[in-house]
């Protein structure tokens, strides 16, 4: 608790209840030194590290993210093929080989997840699919953060009739079967290029997933806006926009981060769902959803085509959910007493 470091200004943001007795607990040789509290973030980080499942989630997410990013390049360096490389060896009965097996049935390190119908390496495809899935998950979450935080903060800060109307709109949007509308949107405006379809996917998912975020931020802002620091800011002539985005929004960051972490797996699931139905990511690009959709057609003969992308995706979502739960326990003050 007591360190030799000189206390910095930041360290006084949050002093937990345990600090109140800290001075009495000091050993004789420590008296006279500065005692300072841990910041909210350091405190939360410590709590997170105590939660084994959350740490497991964090580690898995980091591993999968890094291998998705560098994996395809690494495979190209080592084995010399890209995710869309189709081998040109003599056509056998099939080009889809089980894991760790080469074209002649011998053991081989080249395809640890086997190959797909065209003979493409599954590991490289799954890693490339991971890039797209994570990319869509993170970017759409950022879009929903941007819209949701601004919308909720404005509604909460302005209040009154504006707040009422803005929140009624959210209520109405909430009750819509939005996935159904998204399917109509994606199928009607089906883009000719894979990149265009991907952009359409971002717009479609991002524009419907900000509702809960708006509600959470509004609730936070409502409870913050009557506190002294806002009054002080207003008294010194700070503009409303600046109060919202420089004073209020940073204070809602805890719940926002927690909810964003839990939004990523939801969005990845929606993306996979849409890609699985054939409305999302299009070939030659691949996502875990579209790989699973390809795999399900050959499930009786080549089960590995479904199992590897499916299990990778489930593992990622599993870890993200645990991480989100852990973050909530670590950051949410109400949960601390439980």
């Amino acid at each position, binding site marked *: 608790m007591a360190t030799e470091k000189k206390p910095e200004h930041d360290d006084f943001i949050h002093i937990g209840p345990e600090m109140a007795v800290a001075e009495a607990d000091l050993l004789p040789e420590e008296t006279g030194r500065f005692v300072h509290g841990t910041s909210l973030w350091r405190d939360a980080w410590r709590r997170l590290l105590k939660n084994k499942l959350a740490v497991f989630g964090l580690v898995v997410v980091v591993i999968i993210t890094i291998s998705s990013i560098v994996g395809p390049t690494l495979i190209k360096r080592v084995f010399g093929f890209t995710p869309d490389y189709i081998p040109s060896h003599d056509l056998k009965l099939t080009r889809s080989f089980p894991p760790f097996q080469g074209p002649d049935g011998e053991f081989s390190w080249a395809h640890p997840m086997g190959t797909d119908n065209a003979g493409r390496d599954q590991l490289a495809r799954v890693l490339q699919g991971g890039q797209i899935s994570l990319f869509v998950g993170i970017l759409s979450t950022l879009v929903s953060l941007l819209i949701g935080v601004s919308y909720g903060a404005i509604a909460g800060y302005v209040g009154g009739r504006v707040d009422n109307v803005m929140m009624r709109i959210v209520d109405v949007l909430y*009750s819509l079967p939005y996935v159904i*509308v998204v399917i109509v949107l994606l199928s*009607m405006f089906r883009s000719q290029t894979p990149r265009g379809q991907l952009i359409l996917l971002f717009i479609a998912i991002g524009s419907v997933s900000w509702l809960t975020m708006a509600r959470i931020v509004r609730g936070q802002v409502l409870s913050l806006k009557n506190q002294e620091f806002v009054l002080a800011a207003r008294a010194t002539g700070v503009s409303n926009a600046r109060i919202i985005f420089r004073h209020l929004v940073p204070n809602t960051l805890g719940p926002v981060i927690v909810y964003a972490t839990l939004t990523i797996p939801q969005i990845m699931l929606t993306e996979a769902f849409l890609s699985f139905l054939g409305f999302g990511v299009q070939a030659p690009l691949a996502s875990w*959803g579209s790989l699973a959709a390809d795999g399900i057609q050959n499930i009786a003969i080549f089960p590995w085509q479904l199992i590897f992308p499916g*299990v990778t995706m489930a593992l990622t*979502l599993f870890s993200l959910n645990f991480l989100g739960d852990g973050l909530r326990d670590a950051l949410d003050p109400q949960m601390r007493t439980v």
Partner: protein
Amino acid sequence: MFRFIVRRLLVTIPTILVVISITWVLIKLAPGNFYSGEKPLPPAIEQVIREKYGLDKPWYEQYGKTMWSIIRHLDFGTSLRYQGQSVNTIIKRSLPVSAAVGILAYLLALVVGITFGSIAALKQNSKWDYGSMALAMLGISVPNFVLGPILVLIFSLGLYWLPSSRWGGFPSKNLILPVVTLSALYMAYIARLTRAGMLEVLRSDYIRTARAKGLSEREVVIRHALRGGLMPVISYTGPALAFLLTGTVVVERIFALPGLGNYFIQASLNRDEPLIIGIVAFIAITLLLMNLLVDIAYAYLDPRVRYQ
């Protein structure tokens, strides 16, 4: 209460019309037409088609005609791909399939979810608690289009116990795999919600009172704790229904069931405009009415909730 229901219904009807209008606008804004294919049609034929489907009229006339027949007669017109079949017939035919799978899945999820959630709460921090919560997390994380095929792989292709697909009438073995696949996610959510709700309630004063007056533990849990602890589960019914509807789309696709979801995907891919609008409207109506029912049930069950 009565005024609350009337007011909610008054909001619900415009909402449904907005959903239908959004769908209509999306379809009309989209490039191309339902009849346009790879090759352009000869102008004379195109002219005939446009006249037959009223596409030569200005947009407001088309919109007015569609909306009027929906409002006046609940008539969504005739499907463009399933020749000679009205949208209403198709919905009537496919609804029982989706409803059977959906309702059974929700019931299964309720029974299993509440049981495991209650056990986890009553034996907090025990093996049971950790085990069922880990299972629940698994249920939330494994997408249904992965779970379904894996179940098929095990129970149909491996053990030959259950049929892998197709509709086999109402009580039939064919229903087991789709229902289990669809319910996994809700089971998991309901177990988590029940556990959280029960944990909160078990600490409350009225449970202490019930125990103090000498009720058996069984009585306390079933008569008192469950009633309060299940409130989050009831308020989850609305969102669950929305998820269930989207879930059936995937499950019907995996197991080749002729339900609403499957028709909806086909209609979207074929650009069968009246059928798309019909199914979207039907889903919106179901969803909004169910949400209203949930709110009413909530008010009856929780004496603290009062609607003006």
